[in-house]
């Protein structure tokens, strides 16, 4: 679609949407959000981008094939799961690295977050794979 308004607006919006997606991803453990919702948000961001600019710039921005993003997501989720057996616990056991109370509040990093990142990447990669292929059909 070749409209100036959409092009200018999308340039401002896409970044904001992607940041919002990351925000959703990170807050997901305590508040509404999470990897799946974040992936959908990010997906709409990219949709806006390719509607305004076409698919070629989107593929350039991604640098890798969207299917690779999906594959990376599956690998990440699997890695999060395998950290359990590597430390002698069952597959997909949640392991936590508590940084204790800091000035920002309690920071807790764990394999569930890594797993959620995997979900995010897998779903985003899948969405982009299909949508870009459809748009280029």
């Amino acid at each position: 679609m070749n409209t100036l308004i959409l092009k200018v607006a999308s340039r401002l919006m896409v970044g904001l949407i992607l940041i919002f997606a990351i925000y959703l991803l990170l807050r997901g453990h305590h508040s509404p959000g999470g990897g799946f919702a974040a992936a959908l948000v990010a997906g709409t961001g990219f949709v806006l981008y390719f509607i305004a600019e076409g698919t070629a710039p989107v593929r350039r921005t991604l640098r890798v094939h969207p299917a690779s993003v999906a594959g990376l997501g599956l690998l990440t989720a699997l890695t999060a799961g395998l950290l359990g057996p590597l430390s002698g616990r069952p597959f997909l056991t949640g392991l936590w690295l508590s940084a204790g109370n800091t000035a920002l509040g309690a920071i807790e990093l764990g394999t569930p977050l890594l797993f959620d990142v995997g979900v995010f990447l897998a779903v985003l990669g899948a969405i982009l794979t299909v949508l870009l292929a459809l748009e280029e059909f």
Partner: protein
Amino acid sequence: MTSAQSSTVGGPLRYLHLLPSLLIFTLLAALVPHSVRGTVFGGEWIWSHGLGVHLAWRLDGLSMLFGLIISGAGVLVTLYSLSYLAGHPHENRYFLLLHSFLLAMLGIVLADHLLLLFIFWELTTVLSFLLIGFYHEEDSARENARQALFVTGGGGLALLLGLLLLESAGVTPYLHAWLDAPRGFHEHRLYPLILGCMFVAVFTKSAQFPFHFWLPNAMSAPTPISAFLHSATMVKAGIYLLMRLHPLLGGTYLWMGPLVVIGGVTALWGAWCAMGPSDLKRVLAHTTLMGLGLLTLFLGGRSLPALLAATTFLLVHALYKAALFLAAGIIDHQTGTRRLDELGGLGRHLPWTAAATALASLSMAGFPLFFGFIGKEILYKGVLTEELFPHFATVAALVANAFMTAVSGYLIWRPFFGHRPEALDDTSEAPWQMLAGPLLLGGLCVLFGLIPGWVVATLIEPAVMSFHLTDDNIELALFHGINAPLLLSIATLILGGLFLWQRERLRRLLTAIHRLLPISGEGAYAIILAAVQRSAAGAALPFDRGRPQTHAAVVLFTGWLAVAAVWLFSGGRLPPLPATNPPLLESGIVAVVVVATGLVLFTRRSILAIAALGVVGAGAALIYLLMGAPDLALTQLLVETLTLVIITLVLIRLRKSKLTATPRSSGRYFKAGLALLLGATLTLLMLLVTGSELDRDVTHFFETYSYVAAHGRNIVNVILVDFRSFDTLGEIVVVVLAALGAVALLRRMKEQG
């Protein structure tokens, strides 16, 4: 013609591909002194505590012999492939598959738990499928890969069934515990069934009659793969399983009968068929059938000589067969043809290849001083001790071996001597990477023949002891004096010479028999496959004529029917209507949703229909939000947005491709009626469910432990990524696979225009 390409081997980094197999081989070789002394290495990691499945591995004499063959052949085949496939666009894929296969195969022979063995067994099946179909642009390669997958995959199912039956019969899944198995097991009522399952698994994997046909067809694979998978390693997996099962299941007539007969028939038939084809690789594939048949035949027996014969012949066969395959690959690679009738007089151009072929062939023929001679002596000693059908076994072994002798002579004579066709005049010798394998293996055929005592003491004896308890001494020698085995060996050579002389007549006879046979294994396979496809089409076509609308209507109506039937048969109770009036805000949203739904149904403009659909979704999301489910509302809204984008994209493409994209008016009232029916039923159901007392145990568990155990306050997310993360893992795999499938379909439609 390909000599210019073959000498270019890319950067030195490619030699890193040698590392996996080389490391494993070195490690195993370093442990040989321990295995000779009978030391067993093993270990276990917990995999699934609840199911009692552990990653148990064990390295004993038998695993050592197989491991050395696998990794040793792996080194040579990798080195060979570095030159054979140099410059192939999918080289990396090839090596990835090759290394994966090597590891899966090692997994089979190192696994101590039957379930673990099964998993690696299936892995080799899948990897073999990918490797046979490596030249996937060729129809025949794909077809043959699929055939191998179906046949060996079917055998894998039988193995799984046998494994479960063993478990329910109370047999330990640990392989090492089978060595001194309880004697009473042969009377167990499940014994015949278990035996049947295991036989199907073994006969498919190791290409025994009537499942043998996939192996010659698997020759569509790149030649180094044929050498590695389809002669030295994968097809021996069935033999390996037979050896492991031997102490547990062996010793009965039910065990001996099928193995001796099927093995004998496979050996005879394979050996005879090896006289037929002019394709060098198919000849070798048939001789492999013969080898596998003999191995099966010997594992039918329970005497020490029979088992010794099987184990020795395993090594003999791996050595000469891998060498011959690799040499055949050189001939194919350097001349551009592997048809025997187009070859000749290459001895001067391919001197090293000729030498390697001669060494391996003479070992296959069983000439004195070669390892094959020792192997054959033991074979005859073993065959004479068979308990069941000793005469059949002896004749089968004798005639099959004679055929091998004839084929060996032909393999040396045909490509390297006689008249050379002009097309082959500028043939040049292969680079050293390709020559190393066949020459080394051919050399071992001689070396092992000269020091049989050492080979038996270090490799064969520890292997036999791993699956057979005995106190007898094992001895091998170059010359035992004039006895029955020696006489049979001599008879073999004479008969082989006779067969070579009467080659044409035997070949014609074979063709005649082929014509007389009512049905072959391959014919049966084709009939079954066609029947499956026909019945699948017959089941699907009445409901799916290619129109998504019809398909959706059938699926939705069937779903409604099922739900309505259950509701009716369970009493057809009506739920009490909610006592309170719904709040104003919710009522307003519902009204908007209803209007939008009507618009979706009755507008003639597709873009309006799409927009109205979006309103319906957004309305639902708003209601979720008002009911206190922000997570659900968020997801609903996002899914709705993306769905709209996808539908719009699809409709635009449809219009572009001049397919109908405007809603058709026909059947509109029918669709509205169906939608109403479904909606009403679902509403009824929801009211029934919420009207009854809910079990809050699960909710309570999540509420209690979400923060304490999983450090999260958002219960929905904690369930997704922690409590039920295994489900989520499965779901994202499905999502990604669906996306890849959709892209494949789109690409295909695009290519077809």
